[in-house]
């Protein structure tokens, strides 16, 4: 039986040089978004594709939760070697936090029945670093976070992984399958797609999955299904910088005056 690896990916947003906050003050205005595949997901996809290329029967399926724009990121994954792509969306999913997303993914995992699920350690835009682990929790599967080396032969019931811990300490461990792993940057060197595979990917179908296909209801997702909620997004006020000029003595005097000012009159 083929080994199936499900790679959960996200289309993240980066900001243009100039941007504005949305009128409701809870996010950046989408007009200023530059969208791209989350950097971590490039690595987790590559890790899955490498396993496939090493031989054995392996299917790599990428899945994302997101609106139509996210197809672009899925196509990128297809161009880099994923076999299939699934996009899950329903307008009710707007405003989901990582817990709600994990709930959606868990439903998809149950349908797809993979042997391994890879997620990125975190997403570059929201940086919660929790979706993968929340997913493992919902599935009640073995999991490991921040994996930076992965050894596995298709068909095996265990994988050996290495994790990055505090203070440069590494941890080797084995993990039973099925399992959820969150993959760290640098685990491999992600490939680039060629123009040929990009063209081929453009012709591949993207499976679309809705709320009811997964047996979920609107209350499971979006703000209703989330445990947290964004209150405000804002740009902090900038600090002041001043070039201190003059002779060394003058510079020292000015610096002393500034320090005094900051410390308050008593100093």
């Amino acid at each position, binding site marked *: 039986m083929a080994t199936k690896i499900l790679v959960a990916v996200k289309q993240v947003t980066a900001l243009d*040089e*100039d941007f504005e906050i949305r009128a409701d003050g809870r996010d950046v205005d989408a007009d200023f978004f*530059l969208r*791209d595949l989350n950097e971590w997901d490039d690595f987790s996809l590559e890790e899955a594709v490498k396993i496939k290329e090493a031989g054995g029967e392996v299917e790599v399926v990428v899945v994302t939760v997101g609106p139509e724009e996210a197809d*672009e990121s899925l196509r990128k994954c297809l161009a880099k070697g994923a076999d299939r792509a699934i996009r899950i969306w329903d307008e009710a999913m707007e405003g989901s936090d990582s817990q709600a997303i994990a709930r959606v993914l868990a439903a998809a995992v149950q349908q797809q029945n993979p042997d391994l699920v890879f997620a990125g350690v975190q997403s570059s835009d929201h940086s919660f670093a929790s979706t993968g682990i929340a997913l493992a929790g919902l599935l009640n599967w073995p999991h490991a976070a921040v994996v930076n080396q992965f050894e596995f032969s298709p068909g095996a019931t265990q994988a050996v992984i290495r994790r990055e811990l505090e203070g440069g300490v590494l941890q080797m461990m084995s993990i039973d399958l099925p399992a959820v792993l969150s993959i760290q940057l640098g685990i491999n*060197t992600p490939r*680039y*797609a*060629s*123009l*040929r*595979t*990009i*063209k081929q990917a453009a012709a591949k179908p993207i499976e679309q999955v809705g709320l009811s296909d997964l047996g979920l209801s609107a209350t499971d997702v979006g703000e209703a299904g989330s445990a947290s909620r964004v209150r405000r997004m804002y740009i902090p006020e900038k600090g002041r910088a001043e070039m201190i000029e003059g002779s060394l003595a003058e510079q020292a005097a000015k610096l002393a005056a500034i320090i005094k000012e900051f410390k308050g009159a008593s100093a």
Partner: protein
Amino acid sequence: MARDPKHDILFEPIQIGPKTLRNRFYQVPHCIGAGSDRPGFQAAHRSVKAEGGWAGINTEYCSIHPESDDTHRLSARLWDDGDVHNLRAMCDEVHRYGALAGVELWYGGAHSPNMESRSTPRGPSQYASEFETMTYCKEMDLNDIKQVQGYYVEAALRARDAGFDIVYVYGAHSYLPLQFLSPFYNKRTDHYGGSLENRARFWLETLEQVGRAVGKDCAIATRFAVDSLYGTSGIEAEVDGVKFAKLADPLVDVWDIDVGDIAEWGEDAGPSRFYLQGHQVPWTKFIKQVVKKPVLGVGRFTDPEKMVEIVTKGYADIIGAARPSIADPFLPKKIEEGRYDDIRVCIGCNVCISRWEIGGPPMICTQNATAGEEFRRGWHPEKFKKKGSQDSVLVIGAGPSGGECSRVLMERGYTVHLYDTAAKIGGHINELALLPGLGEWGYHRDYRETQITKLAKKNKECQVALGQKPMTATDALAYGADRIVIATGSSWNTDGTNCLSHDPIPGADASRDDQLTPEQVILGKKKIGKRVVIVNADTYFMAPSIAEKLAAAGHEVTLVTGVHLANYMHFTLEYPNMMRRLHELHVNVLEHEFCSKIEPGRMQAYNIWGDGSKRTYRGPGKPPRDENQSHHWIEFDSLILVTGRHSHDSLHRELHAKTGEWEKNGVKAVYLIGDAEAPRLIADATFSGHRLAREIEEANPQLPLPYKREVAKWGVAHVAGTSAALEYKV
């Protein structure tokens, strides 16, 4: 994005006599190879800068009379109505964009060789030019002085008629007014020589007469080199410099100040190898302290922070620029719009200048491939024609040509995949920028890196793949691109192949531990011994740069050179200080010597002229000159081969061997650009990439389209109403 309010001061208008400059950005006079003979080139090159936001834009030096004829070099001329007609085109185009047009009236004295006009130049005293070969001037008598001043006035009137707003009396770079002012040239004992007042007389009178003639309509400018940098033998800024400025101030509307002379004018147009932005300030800052009229100064100003400092510290009111305006004609616009990282920063290589020094070919720029191509090829520096097809392009090699080709293709909307084995865009610039003094050359890479990154963000179909494995012909064909551009660069020969013997040097082998190519020296992975011998057959900077680097690091360096060492650096004005540098580092230069063979630890040198001056026919198999018996051995610990370069064209050749597979792989064409086609200047490599990107829809884009030529047309007289027929005066 809006500009930073800190830079607002640069956008304040300023009055100069009867005219107003709309802001503080001013293109000082500089040559381009157009003069009055290529009016389309002249009009287009200058007006693109007017469009780019400069407030004042000048011609190059402009001769006032056939007696000041710089042929073989190319100046503008205002000798007659034909010249007025041609230069009017520039004024009209510059005015369309709201800028002022200026002309730099020039009389060269003995520095102008008059090789076309065959006239005799006149000067304050008789002297032999230290700049031009075999040129003396006639010492002017009082009549001559009046006559030459009359030439200035007549030329000024023609300038006004052509539509110029600013008329210069040019006294920098050791030209006539400065020759009168400087005791270095002026040995007169009459009232035009001796005291400062006497030496200043010619210049002041000329300003006065020109002002009287055109001062109501035009701003009167004077360009003054405030310090000759010779100490007391010439003009010193704080002595005669400020005194003259005070005397002449009432007669000028704007001061254009710089330093130096003509023989070493690299002290003015300072190459980045030796001079930083703002390098003239320690000399020029004194002038503004003593004059009332606006002052402008130069110093390769590219950074708005520095420009603001110049104005706010009171060194000058207006930012003059030659090279920065060539590298980026839209510099002011980009500052105004806050597009700071779009600025194409001048790298200070002086390749622009090299063309003038060589004697007149059109100016080129390393950073700006469109410089000089505005009219003849219709290239705008900032605007591009939308793509002409849906073809995708794979560019292999992200050096100067591949990077530029990709950038322009991306600007045009093409889907481009740029591919390189190196981890960084830039190709060999990444190595060159590590050589002594060449750090700023890295701006060439930085500009392309920034632009390509931005463009690839805008068009997601574009991709920059760095740090990749070398691409084979099979990979390239399978890649899925409609068109493939090979820009794989070149490298230095490892076997000593050179321009003198056109063969390898026996024993040369840079795979050995004790022999290195320049790249190996720069990368620093091979150990280099105490005694270094550099074998040179390259005429640009590599050998002296390597010598400087190693000598400065404590090696004993002998440079054996079979060609004129650093010859091209004469043209880039880097030569004098490069030689001073080698001298102070005790580099032992063996000129006219080359290498016949190399053995472990020693190389055999010979004098290239050692084969006898007599040429005799001695029958087949026998050389016509004597056997060269000048051979001698030089020992080394490390030997460096700066003998020549070769293209990395194997991928291109392999792809051409597989033309039968192109169609089934969907490949329509494969092109070869940059050093991979033939090693060349960075400017030319950049150009070749740019050109291909502009012309990729043409029938055969590998070869350039013809350009518009501006040449005299038979039967058409230069001066309207005169005869163009062949007529003997007999």
